């Protein structure tokens, strides 16, 4: 296979031998791919490949080969890309970890690819990051074929505003009576409907975070996300603990 100037984002790079790297990229038409980039750190007239090969930047990659690990032939920047600063950098890394863990190689997801670009742009903006991340998580589940509708309970009935629900693994939202069930694992119908409508403000923000965390965890084979742990430690450190 020989592909020319394929739009892609770098998800992760690992050093390999003296000046090469093993890349995981998310491309528009070929999905997640593994590539070997040779001589990344070699310098020529004040520039090197590694300056262009950075995450969160739209790239045009040319590569060739077969199997799981193809050879990177050329890289061009397809735009300035976004600059994520501070906490937003951790959010960006979280997106990349999600894609690394959940996408299968060679599974083209052009809609998700476009949405990833929009999500990065939104993260670089001023608006709150949480809603942007939740929107991406829902979209990701949808694109992977694990579509999850917060407005429907396990019997495909409409979620009622005043009722309480809990998330049951492998099934979906189950109505729970009164105070029964686990206190932390319950969601209010009102919040679920707000999430379904794409509104992640107020009490729906926390509900969306916990709900999607449970849903995503189901697809991660029980291994936790490292960026989430990093975020937790960062928050603890910030409060002076």
């Amino acid at each position, binding site marked *: 296979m020989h592909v020319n100037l394929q739009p892609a984002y770098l998800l992760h790079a690992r050093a390999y031998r003296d000046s090469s790297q093993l890349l995981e990229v998310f491309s528009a038409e070929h999905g997640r791919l593994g590539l070997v980039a040779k001589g990344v750190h070699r310098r*020529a007239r004040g520039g090197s490949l590694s300056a262009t090969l950075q995450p969160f930047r739209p790239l045009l990659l040319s590569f060739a080969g077969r199997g799981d690990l193809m050879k990177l032939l050329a890289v061009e920047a397809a735009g300035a*890309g976004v600059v994520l600063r501070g906490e937003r950098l951790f959010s960006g*890394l979280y997106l990349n970890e999600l894609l690394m863990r959940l996408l299968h190689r060679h599974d083209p997801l052009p809609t998700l690819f476009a949405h990833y670009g929009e999500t990065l742009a939104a993260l670089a903006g001023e608006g709150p990051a949480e809603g942007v991340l939740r929107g991406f998580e829902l979209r990701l589940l949808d694109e992977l074929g694990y579509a999850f509708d917060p407005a429907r309970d396990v019997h495909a009935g409409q979620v009622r505003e005043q009722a309480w629900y809990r998330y049951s693994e492998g099934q979906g939202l189950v109505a729970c009576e009164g105070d029964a069930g686990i206190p932390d694992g319950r969601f209010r119908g009102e919040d679920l409907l707000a999430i379904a409508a794409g509104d992640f403000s107020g009490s729906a923000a926390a509900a969306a975070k916990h709900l999607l965390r449970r849903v995503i965890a189901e697809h991660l084979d029980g291994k936790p996300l*490292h960026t989430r742990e990093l975020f937790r430690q960062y928050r603890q450190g910030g409060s002076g603990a």
Partner: protein
Amino acid sequence: MKFSPALTELIEALRCLPGVGPKSAQRMCLHLLERDREGASSLAHALQQAVERVDHCRRCRNFTELDICEICADTRRDHSVICVVETPADVLAVEQSGSYRGLYFVLMGHLSPIDGIGPAEIGLDRFQERVVEEGVAEVILATNPTVEGEATAYYLTDMLLPRGVKVSRIAHGVPLGGELEYVDGSTLAHAFSGRRAVEQ
């Protein structure tokens, strides 16, 4: 033909080196035994010594066979400034530039959540203790200008600023002898946003 058990074992052992596959390992092994027995035993001795004696410096985490490394123990250096770098090779690079006379802290990596490397793995908790204990005046963040390096720098900034420590980040821009035409866009953007007024 099969190699004898000792040879096979040596070839397997050599393969733990980065970039050494079965063929290179075999070549190294045959060379050492056939042409350079003396070199082989001094290599074995040096390896044994290094593995047994070299550990991390208690203060900067750099490799040393002493409890506290030479740089940290040097009283002529400025003990109020600490430069945070990713690897021992970075320490060497900064030392060779001869432009810095403070102390170091070597992270032995950078925050890389996707690889499972968090703040504890790169010793940030210990670094925080050290900064507070020693009353350090300035911390220079010299992690690489990559996404992971920036994340590490940001994490450190957020950790140190509330403790009243001055934190600075090394500048990045056009390399000496470089040509603007060949420098990538984002490096140039950095160079422009970090420009300095020319003083008389």
